[in-house]
């Protein structure tokens, strides 16, 4: 399984891989929003948590269809399905690789983008923490969506429609953590719910994704 993780990371950073795609999109959103909304510091500070979370969510969505589709097209998925690695493990490792390539860089650059959007001082810690807790859920939910649509030609649209509603709770609680953190309020409840969603997704969705792949490979 380590081998699969290393291969996926290697594929992501080589030419034509998805590395940087989500990150670039996230950067663009954060740079463009102040231009569209206007430079008023108070307005930006108010919308910063929401914009940052929406940007993170959409940039995750951008690279989801690559999780299984590339392996399906070149036949690797058939071969992985007949290999000693359980498909549940394949799904989990692929979600992890997606998070390392997409989610983790987002977490790392988010404070800089918070600065661009004039996020209030106390919010930075909570922004990083909320993204670190929430983006794994985005990756694993996305892997499930990708697994559901793996056999379809141009399944990207269907996948987005399937995945976006599942992203909503993470978005709501993630943004709420940052909003409350920035306002200096207590963040315990939304943070716990955010962590709960992530833990639940991590525990259940690899199995669901594996089942979906099995059906799609028939």
């Amino acid at each position, binding site marked *: 399984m380590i081998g699969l993780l290393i291969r996926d990371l290697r594929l992501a950073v080589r030419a034509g891989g998805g590395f940087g795609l989500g990150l670039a999109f996230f950067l663009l959103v954060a740079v463009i929003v102040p231009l569209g909304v206007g430079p008023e510091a108070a307005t930006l500070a108010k919308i910063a948590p929401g914009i940052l979370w929406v940007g993170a969510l959409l940039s995750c969505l951008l690279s989801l269809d690559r999780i299984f589709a590339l392996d399906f097209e070149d036949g690797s998925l058939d071969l*992985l399905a007949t290999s000693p690695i359980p498909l549940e493990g394949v799904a989990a490792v692929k979600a992890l690789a997606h998070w390392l390539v997409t989610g983790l860089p987002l977490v790392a650059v988010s404070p800089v983008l918070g600065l661009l959007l004039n996020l209030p001082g106390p919010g930075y810690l909570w922004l990083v923490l909320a993204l670190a807790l929430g983006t794994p859920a985005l990756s694993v939910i996305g892997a499930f969506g990708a697994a559901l649509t793996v056999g379809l030609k141009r399944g990207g649209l269907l996948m987005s429609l399937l995945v976006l509603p599942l992203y909503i709770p993470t978005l709501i609680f993630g943004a709420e953590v940052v909003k409350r953190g920035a306002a200096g309020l207590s963040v315990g409840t939304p943070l716990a719910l955010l962590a709960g969603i992530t833990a639940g997704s991590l525990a259940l969705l690899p199995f669901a994704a594996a089942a979906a792949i099995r059906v799609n490979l028939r």
Partner: protein
Amino acid sequence: MTLLSVKDLAVARGDLPVLEGVGFALAPGEALVLRGPNGIGKTTLLRTVAGLQPPLAGQVVAAPEAVAYAAHADGVKAVLTVDENLGFWAGVFGQDRVAEALDRMNLRALADRRAANLSAGQKRRLGLARLLVTGRPVWVMDEPTVSLDAASVALFAQAVARHLAAGGAALIATHIDLGLATARMLDLTPFKARPPEDGGRRGAFDEAFA
């Protein structure tokens, strides 16, 4: 002792039954070549044997983790080198026979080349070298010789013969003669799913309408 036995197997492509009543057994050292016209269901049968799809009826009996499947597609990643591709599969199967596989399939000189820069035949050889690093006894191969030249076919036949001599077995769907002296043939034409009025499973719709 049999490595793989298939009893009264019926398989479907999509929802359409294509083959029924297929039965055979493979003992160590045996190879079975599947023949039959296009569309008879060779690939479907092989995918069922490999465990990728459930049979309609009948059973496939093999030891767990005994079957290594080689499909039409080679599962080769274009941006990885030959060595990395093979090393990945060796790691997945917990084996360490990359160097040996490179030599057997005459890929040594290409080891550091990216798979994107391989010819179709070289890619195919890499796909087949993957079987060597699985360490599994039963090789299930779907048209393994597509895009191979005569020398590579001979190389491949040699690798299969060596695998059989080492106590392995092979199930091969192919249209060409591999020159395997011991291989048995199985023509799938008589197993084509019959219409229901003849007691078969084929649905009311013909394939043309499916």
